[in-house]
Structure formats: C-alpha cells, structure tokens
C-alpha cells in the first residue's frame, strides 16, 4: 500500500486551477515518481489505450469533409483545429452504420446511436448490446484500477437513456458518464487512507453477502440485475483495492465556477483523462462531449437563440433561403467539437511516456450519430482516427466503404491488438486503410 495522497497538493499548470493563472507544466515534473525516476521506466511494458469520443447530432459535411483524399488533402474549416495533429491522425469518411436502418422503435437519433455504439438495434429503451469501448475494455481493462471510464461534458439533453449515454455494458444497460470534474477527480485522485480502505472492504463484504442471500429467491430477470449490481460492486472494490500511484500531484477542480461552461469543463475532463492514463488507472475511456440529439447551448460561440439540435434543422439546406447562415452556425459548432478533441490530443501528446508520448500509445476514434446532421444521414459517416504511432496509417483522408464497426474491429484488433475478434455489423477489416504495420505490437 502506498502512502496516502493529499488532495490539496498542487500541480502547477493544470488548467482547472480556476482563477489561478495558468503556468506551464514544469518539464517532466509530472513524470517522476517519489524516487525521482521516470515513471514510465518503472514498467517496461507499454500500455495500449482506447478512447471513443462522441459528440451529438452529426456534422455539416461541406465544412467538415476534405475535398481531396490521400495525403495532400486540405484541412477544412471544421478540422482546422487539428492542423498540428495531421501526422497523427487519419480522417476516414464514407462509413456505413447499417443497424441504424433496421426497422424498429425510436427516432433516427435513437436508432443511429444504438447502432453506432453497439452495432445493434435500438431496443425501444436503450442500446441492444455492449458498446465498442466495453468490448475493448473486456479484453484490456482487466488489470487497471478502472476497467473503463465514462466521461461526459454537456448535460443538456432530451433526457432519454439512449441519448444520455454512449457506453453500454449490455442490452439496455447504460454506463452513465461522469460529468462533474470534481467528482471525476475524486474517483481518480481522492484521498484514501489505509483505515478507510479496510473499512470499505468490510462494508463491501457485508453488501455482497446480502446480495447473495437475496439472489437465491429471485427470478432470472432480477438475478441478472443483481449480478450486474454485484459486478459494479466488484468494480468499486477493485478501485479501492489499488490506489493511484503516488506519481502525480493533481489539483482538485473547484466546485464553484460556471458548471455549464462546457469548453472549460471539457478541458478539465480531458486533463483528468490524460492523468488517468498516465497513472495507469485505466486503459479505456469513452468521452461524451455533447449528448445524442443534444440540446447544448453555445453562448461562447455567440449562439443563444437555439440549441444544438434545433440548429441542425434550422433550414440549414433549404432551397430559396439564405442557406448559408444555418450551415455556418453548424460549422462553428462542429469546429468547437474538433477543438476540444484537439485539446485532448494535445494533452496526451504533452505527457511523455517511455521514448514517446501518451498519444503514441492511445487509439482515439471520434464519431457522431449522424453524418449530415440536417438530413439525419446515417450512412457515409465521417470518423477521425488518431494516435497510435507506428501502427496507424496517418496523415491521410480516406474515403471508403464498409461499416463503422469494420473500422472499430480493425482498430481494436489490428492496430491495438486487443483481440476482440468480432463486433456486430463488422464484416471485414479495413486493415489496408488504417494499419501501418503488418503485425500489431503485442498488447
């Protein structure tokens, strides 16, 4: 057991210091453990990591998708914030999402979301199976403090399960994102003392006994739910059994401040995610910037008349009108999404690990439930693939066929070597497109 962390120790340079001026991160300061040796050197085996990044509603294709394919594509206005990551990313467009079109309950957003995350049909309540991040976590999440993290930012939503959640443990079983930075901080870096841990353990033992006693008397449906509860308790137990390594001095985000200032929250969450990776507390995360069919407001973009979903349908492409305004608004919104994604990439790239950076060993996928937002278009999706130096073919825009699940499977197995084997609606791997090396490094 390591010594307890103090919550109030300071890491200069983290942007969640509230009113404090931002200071640059001292070179490598964060990367040293108590003994002064580089953290990464403690463990020669380098970890692979996976991030599924989502924002709601879709894109405006003409401002988002590059005209040219291949290496010499021109960055579009929406992608511009990623300019400095050009060699560390791959824009893949034209992917299908076939499960979104299976007849069944739900509106286009519900159906597309379930299909996008899980490759399965919307059940009328939630997604029809485990999401791709959970499929990956099942393979590579076993040894870390958290099997996976679900992180969210904007909470503005119509409120239904499939709209509010992107990660799914199983059929109709959402894994809600943590949307409050100070709570995420507490999970990752909160103070833990030996006495607390011991008490927590005996408490959990009692809960587990109670659950087992109850289980015997139940029907299968309830048993299943209780088993899931027990699994959740096991996850809690795992997180308290292993403390975060004493490596980081992370400042606690402040409770006050504008908790609807989404750009600020997004950056706090990205910082914490990067630290969670750096401290090896998890290897898999989903990041829900805005909700499916989201209703986010964008005052910092000067857009106060309506909400995200309203804008997507505000005559964006209507003939005979000043069509450009609606599309320009969507362009600015999409650009903000990409900006926040770029912030996370930058954060990961700023943290050295071994002879590279965290970004080099993290595969990130950036997806939306729709392609052209105004049309609810659910084929021809555009995805950004980033990170994973070495295995991933980067610096490219590729227009392809195949499904978004094909891409997931390729990234999980051929790029990261996670070995998930299959995923619903994945029929063929797109290895030729996205993989740089013939054989992935071992996980």
């Amino acid at each position: 057991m390591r010594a307890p962390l103090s919550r109030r120790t300071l890491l200069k340079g983290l942007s969640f210091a509230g009113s404090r001026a931002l200071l640059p991160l001292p070179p490598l300061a964060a990367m040293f453990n108590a003994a002064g040796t580089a953290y990464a050197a403690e463990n020669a085996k380098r970890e692979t990591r996976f991030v599924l990044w989502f924002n709601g509603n879709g894109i405006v294709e003409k401002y988002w998708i590059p005209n040219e394919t291949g290496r010499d594509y021109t960055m579009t206005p929406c992608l511009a914030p990623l300019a400095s990551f050009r060699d560390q990313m791959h824009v893949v467009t034209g992917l299908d999402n076939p499960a979104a079109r299976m007849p069944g309950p739900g509106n286009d957003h519900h159906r597309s979301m379930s299909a996008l995350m899980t490759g399965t049909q919307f059940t009328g309540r939630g997604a029809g199976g485990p999401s791709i991040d959970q499929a990956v976590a099942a393979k590579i999440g076993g040894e870390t403090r958290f099997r996976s993290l679900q992180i969210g930012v904007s909470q503005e939503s119509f409120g239904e399960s499939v709209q509010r959640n992107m990660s799914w443990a199983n059929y109709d079983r959402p894994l809600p994102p943590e949307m409050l930075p100070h709570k995420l901080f507490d999970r990752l870096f909160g103070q833990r003392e030996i006495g607390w841990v011991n008490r927590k353990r005996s408490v959990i033992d009692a809960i587990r006994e109670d659950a087992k006693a109850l289980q015997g008397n139940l029907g299968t449906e309830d048993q299943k739910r209780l088993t899931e509860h027990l699994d959740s308790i096991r996850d809690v137990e795992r997180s308290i059994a292993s403390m975060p390594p004493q490596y980081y001095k992370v400042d606690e985000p402040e409770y006050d401040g504008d908790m609807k200032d989404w750009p600020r929250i997004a950056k706090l969450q990205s910082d914490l995610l990067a630290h969670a990776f750096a401290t090896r507390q998890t290897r898999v995360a989903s990041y829900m910037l805005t909700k499916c069919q989201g209703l986010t407001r964008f005052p910092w973009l000067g857009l106060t008349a309506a909400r995200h979903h309203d804008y997507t349908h505000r005559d964006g492409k209507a003939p005979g009108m000043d069509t450009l305004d609606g599309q320009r608004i969507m362009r600015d919104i999409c650009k903000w999404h990409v900006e926040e994604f770029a912030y996370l990439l930058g954060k990961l790239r700023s943290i050295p690990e071994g002879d590279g950076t965290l970004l080099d060993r993290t595969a990130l996928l950036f997806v939306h439930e729709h392609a052209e937002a105004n049309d609810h278009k659910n084929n021809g999706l555009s995805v950004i693939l980033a990170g994973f130096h070495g295995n991933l073919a980067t610096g490219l825009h590729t227009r392809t066929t195949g499904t978004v699940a094909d891409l997931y499977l390729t990234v999980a197995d051929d790029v990261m070597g996670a070995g998930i084997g299959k995923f619903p609606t994945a029929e063929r791997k797109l290895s030729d497109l996205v993989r740089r090396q013939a054989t992935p490094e071992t996980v």
Partner: protein
Amino acid sequence: MNFVRDVWPHLEKADCKGCHNNDGVASTTRLQFPEAEATAEERELFGDSLRRFVDTADPAKSMLVLKPTNKIGHAGGRRIQPGSEAETALVNWVKQLNATKPLARHEERKTHAAHEKPVLRRLTHSQYDNTVRDLLGDISRPSRNFPPEDFIDGFKNQFEGQSISPLLAESYGEAASRLASTAKLPKSPNFAESFGKRAFRRPLTALEKTRYQALFAKGGPEAVVEAMLQSPAFLYRPETALKAENKPYVRASRLSYLLWDTMPDETLIAAAEKGELNTPEGFEKQARRMLADPKAALALDEFVSQWMRFDRVVTMVKDRRFYPNFTREMAVAMTEETRRFVADLVWGNRNFLEFFTSGDTFINGDLATLYNMKAPSDDFSRVSYPAESGRGGIISHATFLALTSKPSETSPTARGLFVREQFLCQNVPQPPPGVNTNLPPQNEEKPMTNRERLQMHLTNPSCATCHNLIDPIGLGLEKFDGVGAWREQLTMRIANFDRRREQRTVSVPIDNRGWVAGIQGSEFQTPSELGAALAKTPQCQECLVKQYFRYAMGRRETPADRPVIARVLADFRGSQFRFQELMIAVVKWTEFGVHADRN
C-alpha cells in the same frame, strides 16, 4: 386456405398492427391485433374473428377489404394496394369466412402473461433522498451527486432503467460513507438490529443480524449504516414478497413508496405487524390515512413532474427575439401553475376530468402577463380564465403549449404527439428511417402558415398515414404561440436567425380548426374545446389510469393487467373521477388482484 399461412404475412407486411393494437393510435377502432407473442392458434382465432368485418350480403363490400385498400376512408391510408397479391388474399379470406361457420373457441382470447415480471425495484433518486431524510434526518438530497436517471417509457422509475452501473454503485458508496459519518448514531448494542429494521423495512434475518453485529463490533454504528445504505436490501424493494413472512412489510413499502415516495412510518409498520395489511379493507384504510398526510402531496408532485415533463419545461430555450418576455423564472412558474392545478384537483377531491376542462388556474404575475389576464393579488392563487379566452384545462397551460414548441415557433406535430401519447396513451409509429423530417422553410415571397407547411405531411402518402392522426390536433392550437400566449395572427420572421441584423416580419391569418382523428365530434378551435373532447373519450379516461399504473408499477401494462386496469377504471369512474380513488384503486387492485372481488 389457411389464415396464418396465406393472409397473416400480408397483414404483417402492411403493418396493420402498428396502429391496431391496444396502445396504438387505432386503439379506438374495433380491430385489435393479437400480441406479438401470440401463438399460431391465436392468430387463427384472430383470423376467424375478422368475420365481423365481412359483409355477408355483399362480400365485395366487406370492410376487411375496403378499409386497408383505402377504398373507403381509412385513417391509416392505403396499406394494401388494390390489385395486389395481398388484396387477393384478403378477398379470398372474405369468401372463406363467408362460407364457413365461426370457430367455437372464439371468445377465449387469451392474454399472455408477458415475459416474467421482475420484482426488485430500485429506489428512485427521489425515494433515496426522502428515505435517508426519514431514516437519518439528512436533508441534503444526496442524489444530486448520483448519475441522473434516464427517462424510459415516459417515466424515470421504470424497471428497465434501474440497473446499477459502477458509477452509481460508487455514488451510493460515497453517499453512504458521508451519511454514516455525519449522522448522530447511538452506540447501543442492538443498533444493527433496530436500525436494520428501519433501513431494510423489515426485521433482519438471523444471518443478517450476525453479519451486521460483526460489522458493528469491527466498525461501530458508522460501518453498519455505511453498509446497510449500500445493501440490496435497502436499495431495492421487492414488489411482491420473496418470502411469505415478509409479505406485510412488502405491502407497507409498496404503499409508502407509491403514496409517499419514501419509507413506511412507524404506524404503517405497526399495521403491517398487526396483520392489518392482509385484507383489502385494512390495506385501504392505511392508504387513506397516508393520502391525508402532507407527504402524499410531495409524492404526487413527483408523478406529475415526470408525466408532464417538467424537466424539459425548466430547461427549454426560447428565441428571445420572438419571445422577449420568456425567462427561466417564467418556465419555473409554468410548472408551478400545473403543479398547483393538479394538486387542487387531487387534494380538493374534484373531478379529475377537469384536468382537461377546468376554467380555473393558478398563476403569478409573469403568467398573468403571458395569458393577458389580471394578476392575482397573491402569487399562484386561483383565478378564472375570461370566457372568451378559449383557455381551459391543461391544454391551455403554458407548460403544455411551450413544452411542445420549438425555440422560435410552435410545433403542431409535437403538440399532437403529446396529446396522443400522454393523454390518450397511444403510441404513434416513428417516421420510417431516413425520411427527411424537415418542413419546407419560410419563403419571403409567399409566407406560409404551419398548416400550409405541414401539408407536405399529408400529400406524401408515407407521412400522411400517421400525420393526419397527429397534426390536426396541434393545428387547432395554432392561436397559442410557442410560449403559450394568445395570437390572432401568425407573425413570421423572414430571415435566418442569429447572424442577420435586418429582420422582416410578415403576418398571416391563422386557421385554427382542429380535430382528433378517431374521436367522433372532436372538432375544436380552442384548448377548452379540445379538453372537453378528450375528457369524455373513454381512451383518455383509461389513459389517466394507465399513466398512473405505469408510474406505480414501474413498467408498462401487459395484456395480463387488463382486468386490473378495467377494474381501476371502473372505480375511478364510479367515484366521479376522483384521483385519490384512482390511487387507492391502483394500489389495492394491483396488490390483491381483481379476482378477490369477482363475486
């Protein structure tokens, strides 16, 4: 000719049962398809029952053929093409029915006890907060730090949404450890047993006593509280008793979590222990006692706030150039109006159908301005609408009118859908995948009313089948704008929003004739007329029962629940629609079953 083999597949393909089912938009018609799980035999019986739609004198004029082909008016439009194989199959089936005698087994239409019903219900967030308030005196509402509950099937307390994710388990853990450390706990040696009985809402088992006494010895009362607040025995409550000896306690919890949204009080537990809850009479007596308690009003508020989606009302966004007076405070006032209005009907023991028809409401200054009325001297005190206002009942509340509108305009479609789904309990099929659901935009030269723009729905056959059931409802409310204020004309802003400085406005007259397809004589032009049409519709009355049933049971009704629903509706109607009687009837008949009362 075999119905299941030769006819059924055509009807499946035409998706007749998308509307012709108990929860469908055609639930008011005589044709109801069997459940999805129906056996071949039941389908065969159903096929035979279609002889009701056969014209024996002139088979060619049978509704069974004329309706789905839209040769006579069919609200669902043309589902089967004239001259198609499907039509031939129907014509042949009509002939066969006409030539045969009805099957003897007819009336025995079985209902399926749908898939096994789960019995464990997790405390909702609001129940958790109320329970720790009553258990430990903590009024901090710890669920503010839990991952929010999702809406499923219109409510936040449905079984299907009640899994415990790792994040929720962690949140329970944090809350439990905080509550355990801040509560004042006696160190008495029988703490585990006495606290346990209140936390688990039943006496502890022998094993539990041993377990928690050991924990007490190790960690004191704090450890016991911390563990119990995370135990499934606390977090879940069984809907029906898993062990016979717990039955009275389970009943006590059912009553208290439905009627009070919190744990049972001492009186209720005492009644359980004395066996008073074992009879419908004793059970009802407790229920009535509980309804007289102020906690019942808070519990009802929770139901109303979910049913009427207050969460969406208070987070609405309105374009301030169209609705300059709209503020967040006004949105909150809207929900307060509806909350007080319902509370008055329920606790004042009024006929609950006034929910749709009442000429009275409860407003503050903001809402008085919005409604163009004189402000009452006390905020949210009772006022009467001016007769000429056309207002009456929930349909005229800003809650409803604004909630179902877009940021800068009304949405007749959303208003129609809300009425169908929330007040008639009819599921309207979703638009088919990939359909462009955008309306034609406003055109500077020739501005259109919403009625004109929505014409697109009615001229496109794939839209029309559903939209002619939905849109006309909302079109009748077009003289109420996107925040619920009266307007004589539709004033449109011809320009895109946000960027352009110059705005041009155009006004066009509004045709506010509306109707509810499927309800005879429902033509209306005002909210109060629509309300009156709804109030006297059996589907609407039954829907009030269904909505409370869903909330009470944490699930949708199944065919097996129909006898209970019918019985509750009979009680409700018999009481002249007193909502308290509806609450009593739901809790009583779901607990004891209608067979108890059959003779």
